[in-house]
Structures are given as structure tokens and as C-alpha cells.
């Protein structure tokens, strides 16, 4: 008897995940353009419409977009269960997510309730389909590994994030009476520390040791990190909502420590890698984990030494470190492994045994040189954004240009893989 749901079958069709990966860089360009248009006033307050719109272009348009596409692709590999009807599922997530993100950004910028109504409908549909499809898969996994546990916790956190987001949308769209500041903090922390950190941790558990040939994560961290973090997040939320400030600060410190342990362990494993060659993807992993570590340290310092920096500046720095440095970095790096590999993999599957010319390998589909240069532009964008948060008048315009530029370059690199794929398919 083969256990129910087990499918070690290979990948879903190429275009199911690819559409997410090719759309996402466009949102980085939009975010850069929005910052350029707004200029240094952008940093006046994070509660203004433009920062809210820009944040969601990055978190929904870039991060959630790639994370959803990547889950469609990797769930069969890491948990042995495929997402049902991948083409339909991909369309029903990708289309509403893309349109909903644009609509939400527009609604923030123009402040019209009907824009929020449409955005909530679209995003609710996209995330609803994603949550149902991914949960159906991870709860049918035949074997419970560290990755399965972490992905289950991450999806739980995504549910909380989306529910809070829809509720907050109700405030903007229907004028619901809500404790907006407290709920926004919860929404941001569940999205970044819950969904994003836990998903990255679950994937890193497999990807870091296997692709960089490092030792494995300690077993207790691999299986215990995500449930423990989810539990602390829940306690922290209850304390924060209940107004127990000191206890909430202690729980917040525990979250920051947990994040620091994960980031520190990953950096330590990468330092011990047996694969000595270094490539831009390794650099992306490192900057991502360094940003995560820095955000944890900053959070701790600012909580216990409030005189260090104005709290508003701390919030900007935390947002940039977590969204651009940590999430942006690891996603950007992983795209450079996933997209050329999938192109090669599907070429190989389609032309198996009947290729008239040798198939291009990964480095021919995407050479190192443009990837390395794009990596440098990413690094420049991250530094300039951090500098802009500290001194907006000088650094905002260069930061905006760098963000748009690195996003455009990522897009060009990924589209070039797609073009090489099409060319090889025609020749084959």
C-alpha cells in the first residue's frame, strides 16, 4: 500500500511557478518609482499613504508573489505532496494577487474606499486559494519532517497576517472602528517574523545544507524553532493587545533572540561549508542573514536602550532590514538557483532523447557575470535605503533609483533565462 497523497512526481508545468517569478521584479521597479516620485518627504511618517502603498508593493508584489510560486514548485520535493491542479491554482493565486496588490497600492495613494473594497476582494481570493491549496498539501504529508512542521507554522502565521490585513482593510474601506495602531503592529510582525521568517527557516533547513554542502542544522533547531516561535508570537500578541507592556517587551525580546539564533546558526553553517566555491547566491544568503541578525539586535537595543535612536528611525531601519535586506536578499538569491534550474529541467524533460543540439546548462542559461553585477546593485540599494532612513534629504533619490534599477536588472536576468529556454526549445 502506498500512503495516501504520496507523490514524488516531478515538477508542475514550468509556467505555473514561472509567472510569479517573472512578475515579481516589476513590483520592485514600481516601488523604486514611487519613492522617486515622493522624494525625501516619504520618510516623514510610516503611517502616510505613500509608505503604506510602497510597503505593500514590496511585501505582496515581490515577497508573497515569489513565496507562493516557490511553494507550488517545492512542496512536491520537500514534503512529497503536490499541489492539486497546479495550472488552475497558479492562475487563481497569481492573477488576484497581482491585481489586488496594484489595487491596494492605488487605494492607499488615492484614499478611495471602493479601491479598498476591490483590493480586499482580490487579495482575499488569492490568499484564500493559496492557503487552502498549500494547507491541503502540507497536512497530507506522508512524513513529518522539520520542513513540514515549519511550513505548517508559516502557513498558520500567513492566515493570521491575511486575517489582520483584511480587518485593517475594513478600517480603510468601510470605516470599521478598530485599534488600528496595535493591529498594524501585529499584522507587520506576524507577516515578517511569522510567515516570512518561519517559511525561510523551513526551506533553509533543506536548502542550505544540500546546495552549499554544509553540516545540517541541529535537530532541536530544525524541528523546534518554528513551533516555539509561533507560540511566542501568540503570547506576545495577547500581551500586546492586553496592554501588559513590560511582559510584551520581554516576549518581544524572546522573539528577537529566536530570530538571532536562526540567523546566527545559518551564518555559522555557511562558514563551515565544504563546497568552497563562492557564488552570488551564497553572498545573497549571507546578506539576508546578516540583515536578519542586525534587525534582531536593533530591536533588542531599541527596546532596552530607548535613548539610542528615535523610535521612528528604528522602525524605518527595521522595515528596510527585514523587507529589503532579509526577505529581498534571500528571495533574490534563490530565484537565481530556481529559475535557471527549472528551465534546464523542463528542457531536458521535453527534449529527452530527441535534442538535435546539446542542451544549455544552468551557467549558459544564466551566466555568472550579470548575476554578480545585479548583486552589487542590490547591495547598493540596501545601503542607500538605510542611509535614506537616517538622512532623507541626501539619500532618498539615489536609494529610489538603486531600488528600481536592481529590480529591473533582476527582471532582465530572469527574462533572459526564459528567452534562452524558448530558443533552445525551438532549436531542439
Amino acid at each position, binding site marked *: *500500500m*502506498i*500512503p495516501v497523497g*504520496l*507523490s*514524488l*512526481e*516531478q515538477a508542475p508545468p514550468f509556467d505555473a511557478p514561472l509567472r510569479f517569478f517573472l512578475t515579481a521584479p516589476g513590483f520592485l521597479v514600481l516601488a523604486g518609482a514611487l519613492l522617486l516620485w515622493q522624494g525625501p518627504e516619504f520618510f516623514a511618517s510610516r503611517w502616510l499613504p505613500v509608505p503604506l502603498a510602497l510597503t505593500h508593493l514590496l511585501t505582496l508584489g515581490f515577497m508573497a508573489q515569489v513565496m507562493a510560486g516557490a511553494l507550488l514548485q517545492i512542496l512536491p*520535493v*520537500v*514534503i*512529497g505532496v503536490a499541489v492539486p491542479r497546479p495550472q488552475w491554482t497558479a492562475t487563481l493565486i497569481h492573477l488576484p494577487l497581482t491585481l489586488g496588490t496594484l489595487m491596494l497600492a492605488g487605494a492607499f495613494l488615492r484614499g478611495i474606499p471602493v479601491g479598498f473594497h476591490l483590493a480586499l476582494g482580490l487579495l482575499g481570493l488569492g490568499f484564500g486559494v493559496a492557503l487552502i491549496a498549500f494547507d491541503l498539501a502540507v497536512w497530507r504529508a*506522508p*512524513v513529518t*519532517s522539520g*520542513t513540514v512542521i515549519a511550513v505548517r507554522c508559516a502557513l498558520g502565521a500567513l492566515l493570521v497576517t491575511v486575517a489582520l490585513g483584511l480587518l485593517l482593510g475594513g478600517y480603510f474601506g468601510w470605516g470599521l472602528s478598530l485599534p488600528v495602531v496595535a493591529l498594524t503592529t501585529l499584522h507587520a510582525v506576524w507577516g515578517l517574523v511569522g510567515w516570512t521568517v518561519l517559511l525561510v527557516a523551513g526551506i533553509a533547513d*533543506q536548502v542550505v545544507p*544540500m*546546495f552549499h*554542502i554544509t553540516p545540517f542544522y541541529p535537530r532541536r533547531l530544525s524541528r523546534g524553532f518554528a513551533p516555539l516561535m509561533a507560540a511566542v508570537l501568540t503570547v506576545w500578541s495577547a500581551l500586546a493587545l492586553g496592554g501588559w507592556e513590560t511582559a510584551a517587551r520581554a516576549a518581544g525580546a524572546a522573539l528577537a533572540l529566536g530570530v538571532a539564533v536562526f540567523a546566527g546558526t545559518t551564518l555559522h553553517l555557511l562558514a563551515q561549508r*565544504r*563546497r*568552497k*566555491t563562492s557564488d552570488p547566491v551564497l553572498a545573497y544568503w549571507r546578506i539576508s542573514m546578516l540583515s536578519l541578525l542586525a534587525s534582531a539586535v536593533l530591536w533588542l537595543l531599541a527596546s532596552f536602550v530607548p535613548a539610542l535612536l528615535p523610535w521612528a528611525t528604528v522602525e524605518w531601519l527595521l522595515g528596510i532590514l527585514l523587507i529589503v535586506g532579509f526577505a529581498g536578499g534571500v528571495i533574490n538569491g534563490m530565484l537565481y*538557483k530556481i529559475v535557471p*534550474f527549472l528551465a*534546464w*529541467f523542463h528542457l*531536458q524533460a521535453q527534449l529527452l532523447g530527441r535534442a538535435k543540439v*546539446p542542451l544549455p*546548462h*544552468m*551557467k*549558459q542559461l544564466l551566466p555568472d557575470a550579470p548575476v554578480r553585477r545585479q548583486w552589487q546593485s542590490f547591495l547598493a540599494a540596501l545601503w542607500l535605503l538605510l542611509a535614506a532612513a537616517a538622512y532623507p534629504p541626501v539619500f532618498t533619490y539615489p536609494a529610489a533609483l538603486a531600488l528600481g534599477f536592481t529590480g529591473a536588472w533582476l527582471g532582465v536576468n530572469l527574462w533572459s533565462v526564459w528567452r534562452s529556454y524558448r530558443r533552445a526549445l525551438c532549436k531542439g
Partner: protein
Amino acid sequence: MPSIAEFLAAEHRQCDDHFAAAEESAHAADLTGCRIHFQQFQAAMERHFRNEEDVLFPAFEQATSSTMGPTRVMRLEHRQIRDALADMSSALTGSDLEEYLGQAETLLILTQQHNIKEEQILYPMCDQMLGNTAGLMIQAMQDLPA
């Protein structure tokens, strides 16, 4: 006595070491070193595939009464990996280290996504189903002629 999962995952790690050594030589433009390490890598991979194809998979197929399940996909991927190894080998025959490195990157991801499926899913299931004969199975793998 190790479990089936531990025994076969340790073989994956040995193969990884040979792979990393060959890749490092290629980066250092050391063609001879690369050829030596690649030969060891290819031999270790072939040995590991035979342990699975000749001992583990037949036992799993018998226990599940199916040859069309996960082991069919694993055998298919072994074929893909063998083809990729042959491409790397011909790059070395042509002394083309640039080509070798490009092929190596591709092979690494192909192999590791295969290993993740085995280590995360297939081996733990084998231990669940065949756990009481794990010792005998490991002995049978060790006894396979070279």
C-alpha cells in the same frame, strides 16, 4: 546498527564530499585533480544507485505491491543524474573546465532535489515499513559486488 535512512544519507554525504573536491579542483584549473576526484565521485554515485536499485527499491516495491509508485520516479531521476554525469565526464575528456563547472552546478541541484525527496520522504517510509529487516538490508547492500 544505523537505520536505512542513516546508512543511505551517509552515502549521500560521501558523494557530496567527492563532488566538492572535484569542483574545487576545477575552480583552481587543476585538470588532473579534477579528473581524479570526479572519477571517485562518479564511482560513489554509481555504487549508491546500485544499493538502492538492487536492494532497497525491490524490497519497498514488494512491501507496497507496486512498481509504479515513488520508486519509479526515483529510478527515472537516477537516469537523469547518470546522463548529467556522462555530460560532465565528456567535458573533462575535452579538458573543458568551464563547461564542467556549468554542468556541475546543474547536476548538484538535480542531485540534491532528488536526495531531499529520498531523505525527507522515501527513506523514513522505508524505515517505517521495513524497519525490522533494516540490518539485513544494510548487510545486503554492503555485500553487493563492487
